[in-house]
């Protein structure tokens, strides 16, 4: 509960500081709309030539695009800004201030920066998802919705742990921003069903950069094509990655000497 309250505080501070730059809202809205428009137009072009893409119907891929935007929004909202700041503060030594605070430092670095306008992506994503669901109609039942919510949360944990693990590497190798950049460009591949890709890419997108679990799997859950094994596997992977990230974070902190010390 305390964690939620802390997140609330950080969120409020971000809102207050961002409200001074309200034009940014329209800039972000504009950019998100253009990005969404691009994605939808791309789908329209592809589906003008086919009515199934690797076994996925148009509205199912539409749902996937919705998930892609929701997760992308979550990453842009807290994960990416926080981890970027973490790497920066390990380099210049300002992590000292975070460590001096009487709360869990991992939590603090994870929520320290909130890019509130990225909420737009999340809202748009849910809008797209809702549209897709209405059009899919009869096939979405209670089980699908439930497993979707679970998979979305699982995906969020996976992606958070993955980013934290990468960012924690900065305790050993100071300049790691580049790895995070690679993630951003690879994430685009998650806009299409992972099953389209050839084996080696599917492997890389599942186990090396776990994007499959973040976009395709939740969309599969919603469209009722998720097997129990995948569901279980995703939950286990999330737990495993989270544990690894926690352990690495602890070991990494011991490595940290502080630039000012």
């Amino acid at each position, binding site marked *: 509960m305390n964690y939620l309250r802390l997140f609330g505080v950080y969120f409020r501070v971000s809102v207050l500081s961002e409200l001074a730059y309200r034009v940014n809202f329209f*800039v972000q809205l*504009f*950019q998100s709309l*253009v*990005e969404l*428009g*691009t994605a939808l*137009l*791309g789908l329209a*072009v*592809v589906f003008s*030539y*086919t009515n*199934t*893409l*690797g076994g996925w119907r148009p509205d199912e891929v539409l749902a996937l695009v919705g998930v892609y935007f929701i997760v992308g929004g979550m990453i842009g909202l807290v994960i990416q800004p926080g981890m970027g700041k973490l790497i920066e503060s390990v380099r210049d030594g300002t992590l000292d201030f975070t460590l001096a605070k009487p709360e869990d430092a991992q939590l603090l670095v994870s929520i320290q920066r909130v890019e509130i306008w990225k909420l737009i992506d999340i809202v748009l994503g849910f809008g797209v998802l809702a549209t897709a669901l209405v059009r899919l109609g009869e096939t979405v039942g209670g089980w699908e919705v439930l497993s979707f919510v679970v998979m979305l949360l699982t995906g969020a944990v996976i992606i958070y742990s993955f980013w934290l693990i990468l960012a924690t590497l900065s305790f050993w190798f100071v*300049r790691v921003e*580049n790895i995070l*950049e*690679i993630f951003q*460009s*690879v994430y*685009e*591949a998650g806009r*299409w069903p992972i099953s*389209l*890709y*050839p084996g080696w*890419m599917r492997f890389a997108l599942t186990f090396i950069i776990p994007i499959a679990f973040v976009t395709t799997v939740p969309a599969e859950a919603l469209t009722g094509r998720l097997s129990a094994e995948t569901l279980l596997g995703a939950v286990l992977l999330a737990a495993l990655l989270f544990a690894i990230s926690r352990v690495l974070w602890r070991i990494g902190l011991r490595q940290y000497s502080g630039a000012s010390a």
Partner: protein
Amino acid sequence: MRGLAALYVQQFKTTFASMVQYRASLVIWMISHVLEPLVYLIVWSTVSYTGGGSVGDYTTREFAAYFIVLMLVNHVSYTWIMYEFEYRVREGTFSVTLLKPVHPIHSDIADNISSKLITLPLMVLIALGLAAAFHPLLAPPMWAVVAAIPVLILAFMVRFLLEWTLAQSAFWTTRVTAINQIYFVLVLFLSGQIAPLTLFPAPVQLVAAILPFRWMIGFPVELLLGRLSPVQALTGIGAQVVWLAIGFALFRIVWRAGVRVYSAVGA
């Protein structure tokens, strides 16, 4: 003229040194450049496979050829000047550039060409790897391969001039990201990066033929795939020359006005 040649040589050395230093950024740059065409290659191959082996006038193996060649053509004509310019103006480093006795576009051209020459071997290697994985069907006639040399040079020049000119919008507004994004979307659809332009409805093809984007990317690709007749190739070169002239005129006009605005802000 000799001074300019010396400048290009020097810029090449500088860029080479910094490229060797920042290998990681090179890798990132390559990943995004390979991944996008690769994703569309796979998407269209899937569509083609489902549709019985072809979509429109492209077979599965021709799609593979299209997107692999597109990756290489995009590598030739790509510029990152729009990001660079925004940074320069925002951070004020452009003031130093302006003090130099040559036009700043020269060092940008030299920088662009040299960093591409450095990455070219790796790009070709990736292309060969993709060719082994996707079995592209690529058999262009000899004349098309020869014609592709001037066409690629023209494509590079048109794209460089236009993007350099557009990058100068940073002189007027600090919100260039929005402008850049619009530009990239237009390029994405109307240059043939999402799909070969012949797969688009006729009105879109007409717009693409009038605007410059197709001539920077899609046209060289189609030429190298051997899909164009000599007359079409000549018409395309004509369009490239026209856009080069327009680009040059715009570049002159915008540059004069832009530098004035910049000095007014910086003073």
